[in-house]
């Protein structure tokens, strides 16, 4: 084969075989490329280029994938006292009509997120209530008005002012209607407005009135004011329908006083005795030692009879009292009262001056004035006058009123003549409301000048003679609202229309001058603001009922016989008809904060129902109807009072007095907002008049059971504790005196070396807690079941609200609940029948059991989680890692206390819950969320953490200050809110902590673990419930 000699060449260089060419022959581009030199090493190849290109493109693509930045606005100029993530606390005051509480507001980054009690207050002692705790959410209510309205159209403040002034200055009869004004400076501002428009009168009323009491005190002592009570000093308390622990006048104050007498210890095994005579089972009745069921028509007669029983012993004159019928324990109460003269207290929730006069007479006979109650230092919680308000209504109806101003009140809804008022309101030329929302009254008003929320406002308050407190804003006003006082001053053409300056001026003029030791007003003012409270008597600022500094000791001048004769007319023990009682619920109260979902979802402490009012009927009546409630399933009924009737679901209520039914006020709002509208029915129009005063009961009522089915949302549908002694342990005081362990159920496990305590036998090695060991002790005897802790926990821990349907589905999210158990007649039986054990007694004993995660040392939930999302901390906490949880719910199933809560849905940013869970569904509501606590995702488990964020914050603070943690540095939210101090939280490893001392002291006494026998070794101790009864057989009647 001939070899090919031909040679092919690519270029002349190759042909020539240049040395330059040979050098570069193996390169891809043999010719000289300038690129290489520029890039330095000459190592760049096409491959590098592609790498760079690939990296560049993918980097650019990835950068484009990044989520857009959303509304993260840093402080350009940081406010001096606002540090991100550092909370600030401001002392302030909660005022809602006549309701008062001295508070401390926690703010984060300039927004209030939590309310705690102000412990420096001599009025509320640092106590709070559910309503106070929840009020912070009302601030962020989207239904609040965002600016002034004129004839339903948005307007500017200038136009509104001009128009209002023009119309007011036409003169004629006018009225300014408000609830009780607790603030002396507000009263000044109102007085300036009245002075500017001479035809204007100021009328105060209260949704639930105490004007009968004011009248009785006027008649008895010449002072139309409420006495200051001191339940702390009373060994025997007798209450006729006054729910002083729940809703009557100033329950936070009274409950914290009362409970101080209810803490027996081994060293001092004494406690007060409490009798309650009432119709509907109230929170107070549930906590009474002796509870007697009476009908409202018996009430006055029973009071008169008690008077006679006491008068006959102490030598007073008897009165002609009507026969009260059989009132159980009345004589016993009289005897106990007589034994505790000067150390007892009789109160009544009646609004009949004759009854209240008689109560005054009893307290007077017992020598209680100046000891357990004090009329010389009166309280100002209620100043309303219903008859004056009625006059306003009749004047409007007759067209005599030219103008009316509603100062933060809503009489069309909450005054019993509201309907008439609403119909006649168009008779006026001008109707102005300062309501924060377009409520029932504001909607019919021509002008709305929305007031600030109290957390945006300056104000002061004098709840009681000599006790002042200041309200300060904790956030800049969210909307274009204006403080009502400023509005009044503007309309009055006052030289000072800025209310802050006005307030300062009035404090300078009236209070500062009384303070001898204060050097400079600014220092005094700052100090007062810091404290939130001040004990001082202002110089006469106003010419109200009590301006006299030298208040002399008043003596009882009431005419007992005239009271008695009035009582004879209105009360007897022989009314056979059905009677209706109107009451307030602990959460919703008068309905002012009805649009607050935390309060709507707070279960009623007694019925455990939420999101509704209903007609409570006694068990006996239910048996007659053949009505059995199962899982909240019930029927509706029509309640007819005269010409009015309402249709409400029926709730079978143990403890409801036979022959009576009860309906809660505060529901049936129509224009409160998305949360409250159409929830329940308005019961205010069902109120009547007895002895000329509003009576919150009616003695002539028809109840007709309808066939319509209904389901009430209840968080607890099983009423009794089934005789389970590991759950509820209680004893009588007499037994406790003999044996501090009385009522304790001490289960022992039989073993080869004798009986053993269940906690001594364990498969587990146990945990070591080298630093802290967080535990809690809960005194069942102190817990009154008020629910302040439940709302506090909800606010602190960002707990979602789920709404009525989800509560019906039994999926409420509360980490802390208060179990309420009724006693059953069957518990007394030797070998009880379980079916009968499920049925509560007709007038049961009630026990409240606050229940949250027990932080078990041998936690059954921890072992079963497949992904170890719930684990034990080195400080004894059973901790939940939300982002590890996959949601098998095994832990919840295996929890013997059933305290774990599952996120069945996405509760935040979800249309389905936007109407109820407002705190997580709109930008405004979200401002209330606690930034220290995660908002949990759908599908994860959550539960009480002992407020681990507070524990961490407390530890951090101590560390920063280079000191060991001190007892009291850390308080859980529930402990913090509790008005009765029934919870003690602390470190068991610290021998000096309150909780370890308490547990040490009570270990061989009242302290027990719920479900001790299953060996989970919880870290919450409960103290047995002690009832101050003489003998067990005296079951309530």
């Amino acid at each position, binding site marked *: 084969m001939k070899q090919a000699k031909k040679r092919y060449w690519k270029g002349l260089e190759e042909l020539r075989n240049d040395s330059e060419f040979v050098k570069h022959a193996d390169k891809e581009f043999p010719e000289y490329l300038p690129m290489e030199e520029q890039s330095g090493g000459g190592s760049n190849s096409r491959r590098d280029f592609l790498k760079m290109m690939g990296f560049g493109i993918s980097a650019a693509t990835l950068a484009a994938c990044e989520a857009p930045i959303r509304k993260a606005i840093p402080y350009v100029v940081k406010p001096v006292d606002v540090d991100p993530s550092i909370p600030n606390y401001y002392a302030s005051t909660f005022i809602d009509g006549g309701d008062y509480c001295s508070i401390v507001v926690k703010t984060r980054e300039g927004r209030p997120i939590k309310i705690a009690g102000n412990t420096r207050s001599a009025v509320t002692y640092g106590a709070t209530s559910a309503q106070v705790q929840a009020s912070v959410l009302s601030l962020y209510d989207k239904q609040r008005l965002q600016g002034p309205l004129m004839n339903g159209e948005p307007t500017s403040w200038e136009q509104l002012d001009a128009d209002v002034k023009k119309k007011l200055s036409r003169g004629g009869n006018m009225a300014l209607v408000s609830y009780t004004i607790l603030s002396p400076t507000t009263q000044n501002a109102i007085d300036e407005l009245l002075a500017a428009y001479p035809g204007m009168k100021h009328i105060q009323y209260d949704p639930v009135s105490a004007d009968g009491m004011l009248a009785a005190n006027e008649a008895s002592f010449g002072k139309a004011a409420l006495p200051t009570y001191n339940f702390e000093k009373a060994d025997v308390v007798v209450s006729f329908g006054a729910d002083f622990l729940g809703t009557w006048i100033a329950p936070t104050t009274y409950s914290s006083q009362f409970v101080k007498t209810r803490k027996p210890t081994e060293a001092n095994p004494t406690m007060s005795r409490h009798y309650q005579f009432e119709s509907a089972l109230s929170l107070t009745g549930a906590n009474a030692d002796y509870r007697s069921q009476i009908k409202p028509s018996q009430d006055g007669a029973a009071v008169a009879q008690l008077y006679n029983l006491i008068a006959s012993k102490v030598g007073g004159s008897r009165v002609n009292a009507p026969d009260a019928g059989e009132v159980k324990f009345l004589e016993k109460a009289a005897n106990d009262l007589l034994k505790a003269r000067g150390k007892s207290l009789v109160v009544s929730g009646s609004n009949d001056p004759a009854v209240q006069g008689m109560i005054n007479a009893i307290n007077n006979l017992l020598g209680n004035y100046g000891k357990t109650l004090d009329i010389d230092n009166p309280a100002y919680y209620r100043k309303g006058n219903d008859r004056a308000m009625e006059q306003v209504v009749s004047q409007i109806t007759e067209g005599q009123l030219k103008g009316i101003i509603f100062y933060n009140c809503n009489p069309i809804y909450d005054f019993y003549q509201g309907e008439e008022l609403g119909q006649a309101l168009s008779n006026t030329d001008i109707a102005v409301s300062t309501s924060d929302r377009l409520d029932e009254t504001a909607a019919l008003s021509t002008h709305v000048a929305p007031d600030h929320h109290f957390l945006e406002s300056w104000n002061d308050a004098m709840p009681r003679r000599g006790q002042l407190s200041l309200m300060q804003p904790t956030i800049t006003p969210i909307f274009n609202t204006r403080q009502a006082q400023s509005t009044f001053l503007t309309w009055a053409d006052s030289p000072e229309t800025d209310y802050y300056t006005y307030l300062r001026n009035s404090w300078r003029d009236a209070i500062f001058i009384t303070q001898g030791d204060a050097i400079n007003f600014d220092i005094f003012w700052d100090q007062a603001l810091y404290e939130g409270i001040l004990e001082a008597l202002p110089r006469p600022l106003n010419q109200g009922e009590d301006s006299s500094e030298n208040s002399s000791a008043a003596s009882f001048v009431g005419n007992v016989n005239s009271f008695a004769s009035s009582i004879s007319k209105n009360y007897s023990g022989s009314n056979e008809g059905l009677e209706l009682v109107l009451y307030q619920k602990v959460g919703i109260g008068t309905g002012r904060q009805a649009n607050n979902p935390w309060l709507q979802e707070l279960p009623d402490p007694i019925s455990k129902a939420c999101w509704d009012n209903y007609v409570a009927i006694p068990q006996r009546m239910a048996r007659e109807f053949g009505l059995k409630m199962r899982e909240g399933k019930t029927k509706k009924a029509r309640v007819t009072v005269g010409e009015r009737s309402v249709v409400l679901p029926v709730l079978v209520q143990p403890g409801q007095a036979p022959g009576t039914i009860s309906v809660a006020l505060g529901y049936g709002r129509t224009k409160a907002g998305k949360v409250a509208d159409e929830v329940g029915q308005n019961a205010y129009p069902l109120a009547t008049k007895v002895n000329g005063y509003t009576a919150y009961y009616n003695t002539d009522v028809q109840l007709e059971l309808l066939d319509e089915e209904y389901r009430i949302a209840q968080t607890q549908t099983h009423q009794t504790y089934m005789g*389970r002694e590991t759950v509820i342990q209680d004893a009588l005081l007499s037994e406790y005196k003999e044996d501090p362990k009385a009522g304790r159920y001490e289960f022992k496990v039989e073993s080869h070396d004798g009986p053993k305590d269940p906690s001594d036998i364990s498969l587990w090695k146990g945990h070591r807690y080298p630093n802290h060991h967080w535990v809690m002790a809960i005194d069942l005897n102190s817990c009154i079941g008020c629910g302040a802790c439940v709302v506090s926990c909800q606010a602190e821990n960002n707990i979602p609200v789920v709404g009525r349907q989800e509560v019906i589905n039994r999926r409420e999210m509360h980490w802390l609940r208060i179990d309420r158990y009724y006693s059953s007649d069957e518990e007394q039986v030797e070998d009880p029948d379980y079916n009968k054990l499920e049925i509560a007694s007709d007038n049961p004993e009630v026990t409240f059991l606050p229940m949250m995660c027990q932080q078990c040392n041998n936690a059954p939930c921890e072992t079963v989680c497949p992904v170890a999302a719930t684990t034990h901390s080195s400080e004894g906490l059973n901790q939940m890692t939300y982002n590890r949880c996959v949601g098998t719910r095994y832990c919840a199933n295996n929890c013997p206390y059933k305290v774990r809560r599952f996120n069945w849905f996405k509760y935040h940013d979800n249309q389905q819950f936007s109407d109820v869970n407002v705190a997580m569904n709109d930008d405004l509501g979200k401002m209330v969320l606690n930034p220290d606590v995660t908002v949990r995702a759908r599908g994860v488990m959550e539960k009480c953490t002992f407020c681990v964020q507070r524990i961490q914050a407390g530890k951090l603070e101590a560390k920063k200050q280079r000191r060991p943690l001190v007892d009291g540095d850390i308080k859980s939210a529930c402990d913090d809110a509790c008005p009765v101090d029934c919870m003690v939280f602390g470190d068991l490893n610290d021998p000096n902590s309150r909780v370890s001392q308490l547990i040490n002291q009570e270990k061989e006494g009242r302290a027990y673990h719920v479900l001790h026998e299953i060996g989970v070794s919880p870290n919450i101790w409960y103290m047995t419930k002690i009832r101050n009864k003489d003998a067990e057989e005296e079951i309530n009647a």
Partner: protein
Amino acid sequence: MEVTSAVRKPLVTGGKTVHDVTVDVCRRVEEKPTITWFLAVAASLGLLTVGFYAVFRTLWDGIGMWGLNKTIGWAWDITNFVWWVGIGHAGTLISAILLLFRQRWRMSINRAAEAMTIFAVISAAMFPVLHMGRPWLGAYWNLPLPNTFGSLWVNFNSPLLWDVFAISTYFTVSLVFWYIGLIPDFATIRDRAQGIISRTVYGALSFGWNGSARTWERYEAVALILAGLCTPLVLSVHTIVSFDFATSVIPGWHTTIFPPYFVAGAIFSGFAMVLTLMLITRKVYKLEDYITINHIEMMNIIIIVTGSVVGVAYITELFMAWYSGVEYEQYAFLNRATGPYWWAYWTMMTCNVISPQLFWIKKIRTSIVATFILSIIVNIGMWFERFVIIVTSLHRDYLPSSWAMFQPTIYDLGVYIFTIGLFFTFFFMFAKFFPVINMAEVKSIIKATSEKAPVVQETGTTTLPEEEMAPTASKN
């Protein structure tokens, strides 16, 4: 002394030859699907679609779509899970344990029973995933995977984790066992296949099976090893499932009797389900000669035995509740029988304890209609057993304040329907495309001549009368 065994009744009737077996079984794979099959698949797919909507809503909106609540964290989900797992016991039991015990009658039913096992375990496995709040994470967080999340590891104390291992092991071994058994039959279909597609597909599925003595030897060895592996699994799976309950503190769950009781219950329900499906397959595919009355009777006897074990377990639980003296335990059982869910308890008792006892009567246990009805009743009863254990124990446990009732929603039902649809879709696909009877094995128990054997009348007895003793019909 001379011992002569009784002549056993042929396990396959109708005098089938080897060729008949091949034709009878392969025909179903080869022929065009019948209208009945299309209707059945359409119905299953319909259920699957309807059910898928419920699954979709559950995944999209959350577990809140179901009727669960704060007290009852598991209800239909875990009831269905345990029910399906229980059903999934029969196949492996038949193949493995009966293989070890040399029960040759199993040969004509084990293929379908194993298929049923696999589909039932797939249906069961839906629930542990779907019942999670965050299945997109839980699906892999429940596995001990090395990860970069830090020191995150699974909790080996949790019975749910044991479940993950138990179920996945069981599923894997059952699947392999089933597939190994299918290989010779796939090869048969491959060899008979006319079309290019079926030849390719079945060729691939048969893994190059050539039928040589060596492959047969390996086949037998693998089958025996897998049978040995499967046997403990049959017992362990439901034992471990029962630990979910037995290791808890909830009265009614916290019981040491659960492992044997659950295993017996599983076999009980598994056999019932096998019967239900077999009776239909037998009828539709005209397999009466392979799945004989004899088979049905044998399985009914197993149902009597396991049903009675379950019954004894129920009564033992009641006795222990009384004897323990534990108040909560006593209440839990009293509440089961007389509480708000009494109807569920008595449904369970009737279906599981009383109804299988009817099989003592020979007429009933050899009646196809009665067996079919009772097999369904048993599975209803076993569903209620799990419902009773889960829901009635949870709904009233320690603190009466939390006592609640469970109300299923349409989504609970929907997810259940989804798994039923899934199961039957799989099963019908299997019935069409796979040989429903293990041809290779069945061929070993018929006369290996090319002639038709004389037809033996079905007598419904398990052994022939004494006088018919004759030399054993060996398998050739």
